[in-house]
Structure formats: C-alpha cells, structure tokens
C-alpha cells in the first residue's frame, strides 16, 4: 500500500490547518455561505438535507485496518455511528457538524487519508478494480498507475479549475469490475506485441443527465507517456468546454460534439506538444511507487481445498469467494446488502470487525467496491471458515454478490438535497420481495441500480434493471430502465415506458424478472436474455 512521504503528509496537514482557519472565520460570521461554499467543497464537505455531509476519498478503494478503524472511530465520535460506502469507492458521513470538521480531517490525516478533491471541478478519487493485486485474471497490479496519476494530478494548478468534475478509472483485467467506460478517462493496462506494458485508452464516458459510454481513443499508449496524454486530453477539453452551460460542461459532451475522430486528432496534436516538454515521470519514480504495492508475502505450499461440509458456509463461499492469483488464497467479498438494509451502510462496530479481519487474515488490506461492498483481498483458503463465522456474528455474511438483492442505491431523498425521490426504500422493498435465497439463486446474476435523480449516483444507466426517481407533480415516481451494464460489455439502459409509484415499481421489477425466467435459455443471465430478445417482450410483460 502507498504510504505518504514527508511531503504528502506536510501537504495534507497544512490543508487541515488552513481549513480550520476557514471554518473559524465562517463560524465567527466573517464569511457567508456563498464565500465559504467553494472552500468547504475543496475539502469534500457538502451541505445536505439534514446536516453537513463529508465525503472521504479511499484512493482506488484500498485501505488498511488502521484506516478502517479510524473511519469507525469518526463514525462513532462525530457522526451517528455509521458510514456509507459509495459507488466511487469513497465513504460518506451524513451527520457532520461544521465546527468538528477540522478535527475529523486532522484524524483522517493521522492515518494518511483526506477529503481533498472529493467534490468540485477537479480530478476525483481514482477508481480501480477492487481485486487489484489479487485477481487471478489481471496482467499486473493497476494501483501503482492509479497512485502515479493521483500524485501527478492532486493540486496541479491546471487541474484545479476544470470545466467540471473529472473521473478516472484504471484496470488491468479483461473482466471489467470498475465500470471503466462510464468514466471521463479510462485506462485498461494491456501488453503490445513486443510485450511492453501500455494502456488502451477510453474517453468521454459518464452518466448523469446525458449519459455516454466512453469511446476508445487509443489502442496502445506507452505507459510511461500517460501524464503527457492526460494533459493533452485535459487541454483539449479546457480549450473547448462549454463553461457557459452547466449541463454541457462534462467532457463527454465535448467528445460527442466534436466526434471521436476530431477529438482524438486534437488530443494527438496536444500530446505531441506535451511529450516534447518531457514532463513524464522517469522509470525510477514508477519503480519507487510500485514498490509500495509489492505483493504481500504469500505463503507457499498451502492447502488449496476448502471444507464445505457446513451448507451455510458453502453457500457463502459459492457466492462471495473469488479466485486469487496465489495458490492457497482466495478473495472474500463482504456484502453490505443485508435484505432490508441500506445499501452501502455499515456501522462503526462492523467496521471494527472488518478491520480486525483484514489485519488477522488479509495482510492488513481491505477494498471498497463500486457496488458498495467490501473485500478482503488475500485470505488463506483455510482461514475462510473463521472469517465467515466472524462476519456472520457481525451480520455481514450475506451471500448475495451480484444477485437481485445486491442492489446499488444512492442516498436519494432520505439524505440528498438534489433528489426527486427516495431510493433506499425502493431498494429495501425489492430486496424483501426477492429475499428467498432459493429464488435469488434461481434468478442468478442480476444488477439492479437505483438513483433518486438524473445525476445517476446510483448508476441506473448501467443497471441490468435501472430505476430512476423522478418528481411527478410533487410526488415520487419511478422510471424503469432495462439493459444497462457496467462490465466489459458496457451498455446503456433504455427506458421501458411510463413511470410507477413506489409499490408499482416493485411489482414492475418482479414482472420483468418473471419474464426473464419464462424466456431465458439455459445458462443465460438476465442481461443476456434482454440482449437476445430485446425490449418489446419485456415491455409487454411489464405493462401488459
């Protein structure tokens, strides 16, 4: 894991003290909220429906037990005993007091964490594969590249006042577990014919009001030139961005307006310029950072079998455990989706349990996933039973990864000041409707994603079944979308028809699921069936 050096630490500590002073002046009435807002947003502090909300960055979703314990501590001391993991591998606290925020940031800084660039028109937390460094199918660990990019882009003046927020993802596996092409700028690590490491580059993706799937703009970018290339992309965007129109400022609009070809042409032109400046990092710098991500000291000669005599444990293993690249090890997924719970929420006590498990059984490493779950990346297969028992005792052993109850939901109208409708109660009702594990297993992989407004924080555009909360004459209404995906076969969900009320949307989802069950062929997932048979049959089943 990356550790701050003295410069990183000094920078983050200085930022905390700077913000302490800004908060003091705000509380003394020397600033109004219009003056204060840009300052608090630079530190991830929003004003939400009930209170201030603090968004803390978890770079590429990786954290250790000490950090997780601090997150628990913050939940306990400054919030109401829980935190909320989001689809961008961040954690949010919903009940923060302004006066206490500098202390929280100081506590975060003490474990090398912060909330810088978790808001505003900046390069946000860089996301990655939650199995990075552990996945059996990855080429190399993508996180050193995430970390390089993070270091190069944090506080960089040209990137501090971008036309809009900018989201980057980096992965290194053929399977996409990071919703790559839903990002503004996305990199997949590949090897060229000469065996060199480089990136397949995508640009112009994003959800929100105007969703676009990122275009491939480069088949192979030598890895060491990534900084020049990123600068080129941002320069082209900065030059043309519609700063006059808030709905058209995201880079996806520009890429779409210029067209993929013209955008690429301009990027290549700017790229040649940046390359000539020679600002790319030297190999030594990559080596220095990569050393932090050296694989943990895996034991060899471990037993590779798992005793599955206990059926509840076997069910959990089947659903939550994934192949690891080291023999004798496995990746264990922790569900934050108990049926009837709030997707992504976790109590301080549960965070402590997870921190303990990471320290004892996973080389002190944890991951947050874009599906609002957690991961223990390196567990010895023979320890899985003990891990499962501890998780079960903490109410964290649900075996529903990628099943119908593993819903993604944004906070919606229960917490968010931008929302049109509540998301969480819809997620809860759907999960309750499909609570029976036998029925869930029969339905198989099905990704349902719910947002409380067009901003799409709940990824509804990427839902096999997507649900969008809208305001219909002052009351909550829900649109049903079908056919979205955030995996390697990225697709955008399409609206099925007229919206529903809260009870109606749950019934509509059930009708869609039953239609799938009726027409699927052997081994077909929901999304496969939808792609094969198309919208019409589903529409008829849903609307009659």
């Amino acid at each position, binding site marked *: 894991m990356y550790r701050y050096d003295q410069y990183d630490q000094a920078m983050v500590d200085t930022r905390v003290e700077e913000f302490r002073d800004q908060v003091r002046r705000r509380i003394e009435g020397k600033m109004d909220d219009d003056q204060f807002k840009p300052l608090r947003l630079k530190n991830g502090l929003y004003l939400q*429906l*009930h209170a201030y909300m603090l968004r803390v960055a978890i770079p590429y979703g990786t954290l250790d037990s000490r950090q997780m314990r601090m997150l628990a501590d913050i939940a306990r001391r400054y919030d109401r005993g829980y935190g909320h993991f989001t689809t961008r591998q961040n954690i949010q606290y919903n009940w923060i*007091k*302004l006066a206490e925020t500098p202390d929280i940031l100081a506590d975060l800084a003490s474990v090398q964490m912060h909330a810088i660039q978790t808001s505003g028109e900046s390069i946000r937390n860089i996301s990655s594969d939650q199995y990075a460094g552990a996945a059996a199918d990855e080429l190399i660990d993508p996180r050193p590249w995430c970390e390089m990019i993070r270091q190069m882009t944090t506080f960089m003046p040209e990137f501090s006042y971008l036309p809009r927020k900018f989201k980057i993802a980096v992965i290194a596996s053929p399977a996409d577990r990071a919703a790559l092409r839903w990002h503004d700028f996305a990199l997949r690590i590949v090897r060229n014919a000469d065996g060199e490491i480089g990136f397949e580059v995508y640009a112009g993706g994003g959800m929100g009001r105007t969703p676009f799937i990122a275009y491939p703009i480069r088949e192979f970018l030598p890895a060491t030139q990534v900084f020049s290339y990123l600068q080129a992309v941002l320069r082209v965007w900065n030059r043309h961005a519609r700063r006059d129109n808030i709905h058209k400022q995201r880079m996806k609009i520009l890429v779409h307006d210029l067209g993929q070809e013209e955008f690429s042409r301009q990027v290549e032109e700017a790229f040649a310029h940046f390359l000539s400046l020679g600002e790319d990092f030297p190999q030594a710098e990559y080596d220095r950072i990569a050393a932090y991500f050296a694989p943990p000291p895996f034991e060899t000669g471990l037993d590779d079998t798992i005793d599955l005599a206990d059926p509840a444990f076997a069910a959990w293993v089947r659903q939550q455990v994934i192949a690891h690249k080291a023999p004798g090890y496995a990746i264990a997924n922790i569900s934050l989706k108990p049926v009837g719970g709030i997707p992504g929420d976790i109590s301080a006590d549960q965070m402590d349990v997870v921190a303990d498990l990471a320290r004892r059984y996973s080389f002190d490493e944890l991951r947050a996933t874009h599906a609002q779950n957690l991961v223990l990346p390196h567990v010895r297969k023979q320890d899985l039973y003990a891990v499962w028992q501890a998780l079960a005792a903490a109410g964290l052993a649900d075996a529903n990864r990628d099943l119908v109850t593993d819903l993604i939901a944004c906070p919606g109208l229960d917490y968010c*000041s931008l929302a049109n409708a*509540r998301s*969480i109660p819809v997620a809860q009702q759907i999960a309750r409707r499909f609570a029976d594990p036998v029925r869930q297993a029969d339905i198989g992989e099905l990704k349902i994603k719910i947002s409380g407004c067009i901003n799409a924080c709940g990824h509804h555009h990427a839902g096999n079944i997507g649900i969008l909360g809208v305001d219909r004459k002052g009351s909550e209404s829900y649109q049903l979308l079908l056919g979205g995906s955030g995996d390697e076969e990225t697709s955008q969900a399409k609206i099925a028809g007229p919206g529903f009320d809260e009870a109606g949307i749950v019934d509509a989802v059930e009708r869609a699921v039953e239609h799938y069950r009726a027409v699927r062929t052997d081994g077909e997932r929901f999304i496969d069936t939808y792609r094969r048979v198309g919208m019409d049959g589903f529409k008829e089943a849903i609307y009659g």
Partner: protein
Amino acid sequence: MRILTGNDLKSGAVTWWTGYDWSLHVEDAVDAGAEADAILAREAAARRVNNPYAIDGARTEDGRVRPAHIKDRIRAVGPTVRPDLMLKPADPGARDWVI
C-alpha cells in the same frame, strides 16, 4: 402559510423560524407571511443560519405545521429509512406523517 427554514451554522442541523429565533422542531414554525423576504434578508445578513429560505406549509387538523413538499417533511423529521435517526425516534407515526 409561508414557513422559513435553514441549517444551523455550526451543527448543520435543520432549523425553523419561530418568529424570534430558530428551532429544531417544525411544530414551532410560524407563518412568516408577507414578511418572509425581509426576515430572510435580515437573518442571512446576521449569518446565524445557513442558507435560509421560505417554503409553503399548512397546519394539519391537530394544529401541527406540515411542509407542503415531501422533501421538507423529510428535512423536518429525518430519514424515513432510519426511524432511530429521526428527530423523535419514539414517534411511531413520524414516517407516515412524511409520506
């Protein structure tokens, strides 16, 4: 009726204008009527409260103030999905009052 709301400066808690001060309880809200804008301007200038604004509300039959829009009703009592985190956790009717 026009009622005034905002967030407390230090804590961020949702507050309601009572005619002379701010309260955490929507029941204490009064009709600001035609004076709403003047009060808002004065309170914003005094910088005791964050982002104050006026909303429509009505009195229920039992005399309680109820904001017109669901969003403000959720603001008034807390998230409908965590009864334990609502302003009055013991009130079993709170969720129904919102919806």
